[in-house]
């Protein structure tokens, strides 16, 4: 199952500050719910795990993420990641590009495009559900990133970043998937 997710959000912090976090896979990982980097293979390649909980299904994706492109000038990053569930429930791969734009207000806008391919038990839940999981994960990611930016601004860096890296919860996903159904009416 292939899905494309395009998301953007705005932050009051200047682009340079946001880029500091977004250009470091380790900081990015610390903001992704359920994700953890376990090993740095080289400067651009990392091994790690990401846990997704959906109903009674817990999926532990174990894999590698690699920074394909890091464009300091334009503040663009391209990452690819691929993981397999340790208990054989399937795999997921993702290609993500992120870009940071300066805003006239002095703040910044983060634009991400992710292409995700999910194979296995999770994919059986259908694209509606996966889309909602992705939405929820992104929401959580944004929240964590904001928190981290605030910490960075208040000089609290080094405290290890946000503590909340729990996996995405099941019940809330189902509920928001149902809500999502009603929200997605075409606005014509």
């Amino acid at each position, binding site marked *: *199952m292939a899905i494309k997710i395009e998301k953007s959000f705005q932050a009051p912090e200047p682009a340079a500050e946001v880029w500091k976090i977004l250009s470091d896979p380790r900081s990015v990982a610390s903001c992704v719910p359920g994700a953890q980097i376990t090993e740095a293979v080289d400067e651009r390649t990392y091994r790690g795990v990401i846990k997704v909980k959906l109903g009674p299904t817990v999926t532990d994706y174990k894999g590698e993420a690699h920074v394909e492109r890091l464009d300091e000038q334009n503040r663009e990053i391209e990452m690819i990641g691929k993981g397999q569930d340790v*208990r*054989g429930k*399937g*795999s997921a791969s993702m290609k993500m590009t992120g870009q940071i734009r300066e805003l006239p207000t002095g703040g910044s806008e983060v634009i991400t495009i992710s292409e995700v391919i999910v*194979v296995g038990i999770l*994919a*059986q839940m259908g694209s509606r559900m996966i889309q909602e999981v992705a939405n929820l994960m992104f929401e959580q990611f944004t929240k964590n990133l904001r928190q981290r930016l605030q910490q960075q601004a208040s000089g609290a860096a080094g405290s290890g970043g946000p503590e909340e890296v729990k996996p995405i919860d099941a019940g809330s996903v189902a509920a928001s998937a149902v809500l999502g159904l009603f929200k997605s009416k075409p606005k014509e």
Partner: protein
Amino acid sequence: MLAKTSPEIGGMGHPIKRKEDLRFIQGKGNYIDDVQLPGMVYGHMVRSPYAHARITAIRTEEAKKLPGVLAVITGEDLAKANLAWMPTLFHDKQMVLATGKVLFQSQEVAFVVAEDRYTAADAAELVEVDYEELPVLVDPHKAQDTDAPILRDDREEKSNLIFHWEVGDRAATEQQMKSAPVTALVKAFFPRCHPAPLETCGCVIDFNSATGKLTAWITSQAPHAHRTVFALVAGLPEQNIRVISPDIGGGFGNKVPVYPGYVCAAVAALTIGRPVKWIETRSENLQSTGFARDYHMEAELAADKDGRVRALRVKTLADHGAFNAAAQPTKFPAGLFSICTGSYDFSQAFCEVDGVYTNKAPGGIAYRCSFRVTEAAYLIERAMDVLAQELKLDPAELRRRNFIPPEKFPYPSPLGWSYDSGNYQGALDLALEKIGYNELRKEQAEKRKRGELMGIGISSFTEIVGAGPSHTFDILGLKMFDSAELRVHPTGKAIMRMGTKSQGQGHETTYAQIVAQELGIPAADVAIEEGDTDTAPYGLGTYASRSTPTSGAAAALAARKVREKARKIAAHLLEVSEEDLEWEPGKFSVKGAPGKSKTIQEIAFAAYTNFPQGLEPGLEAVHYYDPPNLTFPFGTYVAVVDIDKGTGEVKVRRFVAVDDCGNIINPMIVEGQVHGGLTEGLAIAFMQEISYDESGNIQGGTFMDYLVPTAVETPSWETGNTCTPSPHHPFGAKGVGESPNVGSPAAFVNAVVDALSHLGVKHIDMPLAPWKIWQILKEKGVTQ
């Protein structure tokens, strides 16, 4: 028509209540999961998340460490016993547990056995399997492309083509296609669907090492065939295998094949030395066991301007999944699909089918269908409507002009069948009268003017059931006869054992009524037993509407043998010669001597207490029935639908089903069968599909996505009958269980297309879900 017995006897034609329901409605049935044995342990399957992947490692240590786990069996373990693969029912083999690679999502990879089912399920999660993903083949149309991955590297043929099969006269048919003034083409996909029986598949296997006897309780529609397969595959002596099919909660073809879980449970029982139970979950059932249909079909009709059809050409691509596990008679790779000329008298026809492998679950079972008859009936009934639309002719009138007339029976079809009997016009007329066809057409015309969407759909289908004659029909070499063994006790009560196996059809009642009809022993006094291979005579089981045409016939003929012996005893008791006796249900009387008679009960007692010298004692008979031909039930169904323009929702306003299944054993059971089959047809037409995404992930592998109709979605069915007995069946019956599922999808789709035909819509593939209809309405500018 058959002579009707008294209500006390309850022979054929009496709507007596189903004997088996007494235990079912009290929760006292005995299903597979009710079987409890001392020391029994539980199996759980580890399944593949991938549609196509190489297995690089399987680690079972963690699972084995979990307290309560007794064994973890992998494909490599089975390979040592030469059991990693097993034969399918159709010229192929399939993996029991995967070795080397997996070929479909949810494929069986390892089997965990533990003290309880929860531990087994937990341990299955601890089995670690490393996979290397391979390119996936989902679209059957790409199966024969040069760059398609070859799925079955175990086969000599390096191709995804399983078979090419054709029947009929290609050249003559093509000639008609070229020369006819009118042609009509329809491309119709019959989606992959699943019988989804209420009870999933399962088994309990017990091996007694002292006696060497293997007892297998299996959800099996064909227990004898399963026993023979077990004997051949496992090399066990057949007398040491006992297969028992207890009560079965619906089969619909899903319980005909042998599944890997049965084999794994047997291996586990033999190795561990304790009885092993394995019961599928709902998702396992939907995702890995026998699916049905998945036929990509094309039909073209060549006709004269007045609608008289000259020829039919059919081309079909059959998606069989990873293994060809179709449950079909050996000589018929596409089953009885060549019944696709339907109820019509075409001079020429040609039909070809390509079967291919894809990375999907194996199957191709006959879901409430006599081997691909549903696909065939759907195709021809859709094609006739497309032609009617082309000719701007009323679809009922087009059918009328093309029906095989009653005087042409037995009718040799251009694709090689000999139809036994039929009166298609009669069924159509009755159905149209019941529904009020002319008024409905008027109403439709008025509604169209107002912009409202209403449609009427007709399906005048023909079935071909009761497989089958031994000269043509076998499964794995076993000829498709069936049997009955009738034993009358001294007190005049009886027991009859059969080679078939009910899964809810009501055999315990209908077979008893056949005996009641033939012998006059009240149906209430006849016990029917099926499903135990140690006691029942050999038979090929219940599917393809074959029970009444085969075992039902055997029951009547066994009863007639008993009656002939009873005549001898009666003559002895009445001190007359056999010729002086006349029979009426329940007694022999002396011709011209009123009151001088012996009841069947008195005769039965004498068979054990006072039989003539030289006559073999006892009163029993066995009959193995090899049918001379198949039977051809038929009917006309008419659906009336209204479509909500805003939502695309289709409401079935009315549905009239006129069936002709020859002489009826129990009209209430027939009506029940028709209700059930129509409801399944409704689900197929509007709600159900097992589809796969581009990576081979199953979409529709749970009841969240694979919808089952409830009373809320189901309209009120109106039924009716005409009666055209089968001339070759001992009591003129034809079989009915599948007709409603075979005939109804076309009626529903024809009705919906009819509602939209003025917009230029000619065909819509099932399922006709609201979103699909809504999209069409949007395209046509009917809705915003």
